[in-house]
C-alpha cells in the first residue's frame, strides 16, 4: 500500500518543493478551478492530516500553467483546462486548413455518422479529434472504429459536462465498447484485453490547446 501511495500520489509539501510554487499560488489556482477540487485528496499521516495529489496529473497541470501564464490570464487558462465546451464553429475547409484533424478522418466521420452539414461545433470537433486519435492508433479495423464513435456520440451527452472514460476491450476476438464515469475502478477477468482507453477531459484539454494555438496564428 505504501509503495503504491508513493508512486501515484504526491504530498502537498513535496509538490511545492518540486515545482517551486507557493501555498498562495496553489490556492489561487484552486480558486480559479485550474486545479480541480477533487485532486486535493485528504489522507491521514503521522503528522496529522495531509493533502495528496494524483502525481502525474498535478505535475503536468502545473507545468502547463507555468508555460501558459506568461501569455494568458488565469481565467483564460481556467477556460482551457475546464471540461466545459467552448463556443467555436468550424467549417470542413477550416478544419483541414487549421490541421485539427486529417482529411481522411473527416471523410471517415462523415461516412460513419452520415453527417452532411458543413459546420462542426465543439462537441463535433471533439468527436473528430477522438476519431483521429483512434484511427492513428491503428489498433482497430474500420467497423470497430465506427462502433466506438457511434457509442461515444450517442452517449456522451448523458455525462453532461462530467468527466468520462472511453473503453474498447476485446476477448477472443469479440470486441466491446463502453463509456464510464471517470475516475473509475473497473476490473475484468484476465482474458480481457484493453485495446483502447482514453479519458475525455484530457482530449478536451488537448483539443482546446490545439484550437487556441490555431486561433492565435
Amino acid at each position, binding site marked *: 500500500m505504501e509503495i503504491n501511495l508513493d508512486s501515484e500520489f504526491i504530498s502537498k*509539501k513535496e509538490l511545492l518543493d518540486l515545482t517551486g510554487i*507557493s501555498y498562495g499560488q*496553489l*490556492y*489561487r489556482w484552486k*480558486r480559479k478551478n485550474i486545479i480541480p477540487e477533487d485532486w486535493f485528496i485528504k489522507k491521514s499521516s503521522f503528522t496529522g492530516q495531509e493533502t495528496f495529489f494524483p502525481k502525474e496529473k498535478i505535475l503536468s497541470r502545473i507545468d502547463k500553467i507555468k508555460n501558459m501564464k506568461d501569455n494568458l490570464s488565469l481565467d483564460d487558462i481556467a477556460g482551457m483546462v475546464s471540461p466545459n465546451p467552448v463556443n467555436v464553429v468550424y467549417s470542413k475547409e477550416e478544419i483541414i486548413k487549421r490541421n485539427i484533424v486529417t482529411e481522411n478522418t473527416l471523410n471517415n466521420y462523415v461516412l460513419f455518422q452520415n453527417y452532411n452539414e458543413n459546420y462542426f461545433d465543439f462537441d463535433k470537433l471533439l468527436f473528430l479529434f477522438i476519431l483521429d486519435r483512434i484511427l492513428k492508433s491503428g489498433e482497430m479495423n474500420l467497423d470497430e472504429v465506427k462502433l466506438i464513435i457511434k457509442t461515444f456520440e450517442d452517449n456522451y451527452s448523458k455525462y453532461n459536462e462530467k468527466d468520462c472514460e472511453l473503453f474498447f476491450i476485446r476477448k477472443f476476438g469479440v470486441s466491446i465498447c463502453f463509456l464510464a464515469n471517470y475516475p473509475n475502478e473497473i476490473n475484468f477477468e484476465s482474458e480481457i484485453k484493453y485495446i483502447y482507453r482514453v479519458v475525455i477531459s484530457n482530449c478536451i484539454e488537448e483539443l482546446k490547446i490545439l484550437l487556441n494555438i490555431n486561433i492565435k496564428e
Partner: protein
Amino acid sequence: MKETNNKDLKINGITNLPGGTFNNVKINGQLTLTSDFICNDINVNGMFTAEGKTKAIKGKINGSANFNNDVEFESLNINGKSLVKGESKIKDLKIEGQMRLAKNLTAEEINVFGIVNMNENCNSEIFKTKGSFTIDGMLNAGTIDVELHGRCTANEIGGEKIRIAKGSKNYFNKLIKSIFSSFNFFDIRLITNVIEGDQIYLEYTKASIVRGDSVEIGPGCEIDMVEFKNKFVKSENSTVKENRKI
C-alpha cells in the same frame, strides 16, 4: 441584462407567484416565488422565499430572505437575515446582518460585519471581516483580513496574505451584542486546523499547523507546529510547540 421592458414587481401584501424575468423587485410584505427568476434589482423589506434559482444584479435584504436553490448576484447586501440552500456565486457580498450558506460560496469580495455561517467552502479574492464567521469547510482567499470581535472558526484556511488580528474598537462589540445575543464575546479568537499561505500574521489564533513563506505570530496564539520558508517571528505571549524551517 439591463432590459427596460421587463416589468417591476412590488408586493405589499402576502402572495405566491411563479418566477420569471423582472426589472426591479420590491417586497414589503411576504412573497414566495415558486420557480426560477431573474431580475435587475431586488429589495426585501419583508419576507421573501425563492424556491427556484435566483439570478440578479443587485440585492438588498433588510428583512428576511430564503433562497432554496442556487443564487447568482453581482452584489448582495444582507442587513437582515438570509439563508441560501444552493450554491452561491456572489461577486460582491456584504453581510451586516446574519447569513447562512448551506453550500459553496464563490465570490470576488466578501465583507462581514455581522455573522456568517458556511457549511461548505468559501472561495474569494478578498475576505474581510469585523464580525464572526463559522466555515465548516475551507476558507480560500487571496487576501484574508480578519479583525476578531467574536469567535471565528474555519476548518482550513489558505491564501496569499493572511492577517488575523484582535479588533480594538469596543463600541463595535457592544453594537453587535445588542443585536445578537448568541454572540460569544468572551472567547474572542480564531480556531482552525490548518493555515497555509505566503504571508501570515496571526493574533489570538488556535491552530494545529501553520505553514507559510513568512509567518509572524502575534500575542494570544496557541499553535502546535509552524513550518516556514523564509521568516518566523513569535511574540512572547504566544505558545508555539514546534517550529521548523523548510
